[in-house]
């Protein structure tokens, strides 16, 4: 069990309550659960890293329990009861300095401290769809939901949010635009937050600017956007909707840069790799797919028999294996060898042919061109 979990680079939570670990380098998926005590109320709602070194996975279930899974040992080490199923499903889970932050659909955001049973509680409104933590400032969290705009909370001042967004102006019929924040993300190196809504809009908010309305608004598709993630370097965002359409949007102008194909069901979980240009998606069609962001091609597709709710990528290199590294080194050596051979043949020719040869040498060294040079030599 331990060796299986150490190899896994992608963790997926399913509706049947099973935590699945997928190793893309070995192309295998493993179920981490006990088959005898499966039930639907253990359905995984949220997944999160328990610590900075990504050795623990926190699994939040519908019945209100948060289980800690250790990737090194391969077993569930701890179970905590963080609320009941009557309070709604978990919509977000995060960890700061040994305190666990959980948020449920009814808007109750709680900070569970180690050791003590009392919690710091924040009421984030009703119908919260998602809660996310700021990766650079660990005590800031953002919440948003249906008819519940984006609010950024500082956990040290739980009474009022530090930023409340305002809805956009009335539309051209002078009617109030409905708002439904489905997912949000903090843009690194700045204060801005990008959200995606159930009315197929992607909005960027800037708490540093005086306006509480969105700074940028972009539209994609006609179906609710369910998940959002920011890739490693560029100022773009990847969104997915209920029809299985994934798109990369540019945040400078708000235009669609491209779509990723392959998904047949609604996107439930989406995460970009922290350093590589890869994005992992899981959804209702029971597949985990990894796409490359540069050429938008499908790299991996894994069938995991239950409907999938959330995905968690580890920061380690997804296809790291020693054989791949040595393969690259060998190829470089071979190319060096070819060039040497060409140089050897060059020295035997007279000056005229040499000049021509040096001109051609700048082109890519391939077998065909070697013979071409030989032809001119024969002349």
């Amino acid at each position: 069990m331990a060796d299986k979990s150490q190899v896994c680079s992608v963790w997926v939570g399913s509706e049947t309550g099973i935590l699945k670990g997928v190793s893309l380098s070995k192309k295998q998926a493993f179920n981490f659960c006990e088959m005898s005590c499966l039930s639907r109320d253990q359905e995984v709602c949220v997944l999160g890293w328990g610590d900075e070194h990504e050795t623990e996975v926190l699994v939040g279930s519908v019945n209100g329990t948060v289980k800690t899974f250790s990737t090194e040992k391969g077993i569930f080490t701890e179970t905590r009861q963080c609320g009941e199923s009557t309070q709604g499903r978990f919509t977000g889970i995060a960890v700061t300095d040994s305190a666990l932050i959980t948020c449920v659909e009814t808007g109750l955001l709680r900070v569970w401290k180690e050791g003590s049973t009392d919690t710091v509680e924040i009421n984030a409104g009703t119908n919260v769809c998602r809660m996310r933590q700021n990766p650079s400032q660990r005590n800031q969290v953002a919440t948003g939901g249906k008819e519940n705009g984006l609010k950024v909370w500082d956990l040290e001042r739980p009474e009022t949010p530090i930023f409340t967004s305002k809805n956009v102006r009335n539309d051209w019929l002078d009617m109030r635009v409905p708002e439904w924040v489905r997912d949000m993300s903090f843009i690194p190196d700045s204060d801005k937050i990008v959200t995606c809504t159930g009315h197929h809009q992607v909005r960027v908010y800037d708490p540093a600017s005086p306006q509480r309305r969105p700074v940028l608004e972009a539209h994609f598709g006609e179906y609710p956007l369910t998940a959002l993630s920011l890739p490693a370097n560029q100022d773009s965002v990847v969104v997915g909707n209920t029809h299985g359409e994934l798109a990369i949007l540019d945040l400078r102008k708000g235009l669609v840069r491209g779509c990723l194909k392959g998904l047949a069901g609604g996107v439930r979980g989406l995460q970009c790799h922290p350093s590589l240009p890869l994005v992992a998606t899981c959804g209702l069609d029971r597949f985990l797919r990894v796409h490359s962001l540069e050429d938008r091609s499908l790299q991996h597709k894994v069938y995991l028999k239950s409907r999938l709710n959330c995905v968690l990528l580890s920061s380690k290199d997804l296809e790291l294996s020693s054989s791949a590294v040595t393969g690259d080194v060998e190829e470089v050596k071979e190319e060096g060898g070819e060039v040497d051979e060409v140089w050897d043949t060059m020295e035997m020719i007279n000056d005229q042919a040499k000049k021509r040869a040096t001109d051609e040498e700048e082109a890519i060294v391939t077998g065909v061109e070697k013979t071409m040079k030989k032809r001119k030599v024969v002349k």
Partner: protein
Amino acid sequence: HLQDPPEHVDAPAEFSFPPTFSVSEIKNKQRRHLMFMKLKQEKRKQKVAIKKKKKKERDALGDKAPPKEVPKTIENQRVYDETTVNPEDEEVAFDEGTDEFSAYFNRLTNPKVLITTSDRPRGRTVRFCNQLATVIPDAHVYYRRGLALKKVIPQCIARGFTYLMVINEDRKVPNGMVLCHLPDGPTAHFKVSSVRLRKEMKRRGKDPTEHSPEVILNNFTTRLGHSMGRLFAALFPHDPQFVGRQVATFHNQRDFIFFRFHRYIFKNEKRVGIQELGPRFTLKLRSLQKGTFDSKFGEYEWVLKRHENDVCRRRFNL
């Protein structure tokens, strides 16, 4: 001058000289037609000659002849789908045991179907709905009256219906079906084609009786196919009344689901006679949505994306 080294030859070694002309280059239509007919006859003769030769060889070898080759069909060449359900798979068994249809399969509810149409249906659709209601036991046909489905659904749940079937009509012909499993079950949207009503059936028997039919589900192999199979099975009561000798068949081939309704009679132990009664139609799944009917904000479990299916002719989903 330059001699081509042998490894550098790209053009084929033999080429016909002078180049042959093809039949399509003749400008005169009659002459072209004649040449084409001649070409076809030549080809047919060659084909017959090859067949004869093969048959001769086969007869000459007698018992030692190699077995006859099975012709390739698209079904034979079907690309293996990784979502094909393995009967011993525990996870899939658990998933199916606790999904939205588990109430029916655990015998906690009996099916009760509400059949309706899109607004202002024409004669053919109305007759189709009435015939469907005779085929499905405990089915009730209601006139749509322009009501919104989202408002109809809570009322159906309150009255104990388990299925809502809406036949969509276009240009006086039924062309779509929305099948919604009621308490909170999946909604399937189908394209309906080739609808044949009872009077158009050849050699049909008398009208179906009130007995519950048996249900045959053919070729639903993948995970999505399993869900569809359960969706159709839950339309009919659990225990078929064998006295009635009626059977409803849902046959899946190449992602098209063919519905047939027959009455059978066993003439002796090995031979059965069947009479087709009832309507016949074909369905093609367009989308399967989790939850009751909500096309704008619902989450889709599977959506038919036509251009992605066109990539490989031998890959099917059901």
